[in-house]
């Protein structure tokens, strides 16, 4: 499935050879297929690629650790309503009797200034942090894939305009750019998502464009053209599959970084606003109660750290398993 995995390429080449009447019994398909014990068409090769990728992934303990962390955090966010000890604490309930309690068996991570259970709020925070990061990733992926494919495939002036624009965006550090982008709006979660998207899209455009450029010169594209495939057929049939794997890996790898990013904006008061429970917002609120009530900002930070590490390890694992190269 990966950019450099030969299965897709062989599939196209094999098809081409069959179309052009070249006999393709031995050289391309049979020996490898026999050795691996695969019978069946190209789909079997693709499946085989998946199996091997999964095996490669499983062999690396760090990747598995990443997977466990990611699944754990996602489940925590999804099931927050059922598994959090005090679900109402994330939905506007206040309980002044129990405010600012230190960690105990009742409130493992303590309670905050209005008596809300910090652990419960962290669990709901997982939902908000991860889902907003996924939305950002989705937006930048769409923008990146569309612009990157246009730039890479059309080339020429269009390419220059798109890539030089991306260069300009990339020059400004993402946090500074995102901060500046919040200026014109009232700070809230939508603004933060848009701001981070503005700072983040050029990396995806660059990535997709570089993949398109390197794939475009491949022989099998030329072959597709030779057998009369139109540009749309080539873009979606031959180029797009190469992008999918690269972008999928990058998508996963960066979720943690976007969580960090969104949390930074929230910490500065320019992202998710209280009382919504997001990790960065919680740290920001807790900082006014330092040093006595340290648990309010200490624990959400641990979860940010965990999320960033988890998604990075998981993404690294995917990258190695699918043999995708993200840097030129």
């Amino acid at each position, binding site marked *: 499935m990966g950019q450099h995995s030969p299965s897709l390429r062989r599939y196209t080449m094999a098809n081409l050879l069959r179309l052009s009447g070249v006999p393709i019994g031995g050289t391309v398909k049979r020996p490898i297929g026999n050795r691996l014990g695969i019978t069946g068409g190209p789909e079997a090769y693709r499946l085989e690629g998946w199996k091997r990728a999964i095996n490669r992934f499983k062999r690396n303990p760090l990747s598995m650790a990443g997977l466990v962390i990611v699944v754990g955090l996602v489940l925590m966010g999804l099931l927050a309503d059922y598994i959090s000890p005090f679900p109402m604490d994330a939905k506007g309930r206040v309980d002044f009797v129990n405010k600012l309690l230190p960690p105990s068996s009742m409130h493992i991570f303590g309670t905050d200034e209005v008596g809300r259970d910090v652990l419960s709020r962290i669990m709901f925070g997982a939902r908000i942090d991860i889902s907003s990061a996924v939305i950002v990733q989705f937006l930048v992926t769409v923008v990146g894939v569309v612009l990157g494919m246009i730039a890479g495939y059309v080339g020429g002036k269009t390419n220059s305009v798109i890539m030089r624009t991306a260069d300009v965006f990339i020059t*400004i*550090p993402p946090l*500074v750019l995102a901060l500046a*982008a919040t200026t014109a709006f009232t700070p809230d979660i939508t603004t933060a998502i848009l701001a981070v998207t503005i700072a983040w899209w050029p990396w995806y455009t660059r990535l997709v464009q570089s993949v398109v450029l390197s794939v475009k010169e491949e022989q099998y594209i030329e072959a597709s053209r030779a057998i009369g495939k139109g540009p749309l057929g080539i873009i979606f049939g031959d180029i797009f599959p190469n992008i999918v794997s690269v972008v999928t890996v990058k998508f996963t790898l960066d979720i943690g970084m976007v969580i960090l990013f969104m949390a930074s904006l929230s910490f500065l008061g320019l992202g998710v606003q209280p009382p919504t429970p997001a990790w960065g917002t919680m*740290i920001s609120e807790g900082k006014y109660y330092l040093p006595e009530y340290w648990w309010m900002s200490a624990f959400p930070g641990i979860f940010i750290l965990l999320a960033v590490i988890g998604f990075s390890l998981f993404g690294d694992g995917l990258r190695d398993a699918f043999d995708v190269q993200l840097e030129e």
Partner: protein
Amino acid sequence: MLKMGYGSYVLRRLLYTIPIIFGISVLIFVLTRVLPGDPVKLALGPDATPEMIAQARRIWNLDKPLYVQYVVFMVGFFTGDWGVSLRTYNNVLVDLARFAPATYELTAAAVMFSTLVGIPIGIVAAMHKDKWQDHGSRILSIGGVSMPLFWTGIMLQLLIASYFRLLPIGGRIGDGIARPVHITGFYLLDSLFTGNWEAFWSSAQHIILPAFVLSFPSLANISRLVRSAMIDQRSKDHVILQIANGMPRRLIVYKYMLKNSMASALTMIALMFAYSLGSVALVEMVFFWPGMGTYLVQGIYFKDFNAIMSVVILVGIIIVMANFIVDLLYGYLDPRIRYGEER
């Protein structure tokens, strides 16, 4: 092409920076003024009457067509009139002359620390590849880029400043201590030049924590970079020959491998400075550091678009220049790059 010397390479690189800086100014102009949302209304608050808003728009040239606004701003930017800050009512340039040195000092300290600590860590990791030293450095670098700086800062404040009381919690210099005479704007250097030991000691104590926190990502990056450069070197023919000749390992490492891997590490320093500027706002906000980052964030709270634009353009120019310097260093160290194709 083959006759192209270093001079024309420098010139070409320099010319390349102009469209980027122009692009940055347009981008940031668009972000702060053209997008939907009304900075004037936001800056004046909910009680502003339509007349007040109209008047403010007139004073700040916001009623003019956009290209006029842009030209006015850019002409001002290059002639020293960076507009009035809506928060401090100073010329932004005056404000920045006060705040920027604090940021540069902090960033420089952080980069220095990450270089001095990161390079040895990278060397040790490379020398003990796949041993505990290497794993340790890997964990350190994963942590370095994954830790939310603002959280790390708060935790260190809690532990070191508040619990053990070893260092001050924040600020640039102790409360009762007179600021050193302004020479460079760097408190550490100024107090050193004037022999003001009290101020030197105090500002040194104040800079340690924020610089340490800010250095984390660069530390992680440079140690990984040095590690991989050293490992690259190990498989080079000349190194293998030295090993085969039985030359002492120490000598090979320090005389032959290190020298060759330093080039990429040193060029990295300029970029580290530039990218530390990107996250300095978080650290400054945590440690009450009176720098550009704080100025930017507070400017955003107040919708102080002149301040925001100036800071971002300034940061952009610094980064473009840092890239330029790196290119020059690369071109100097490796002549092949001069003749190579543009990226």
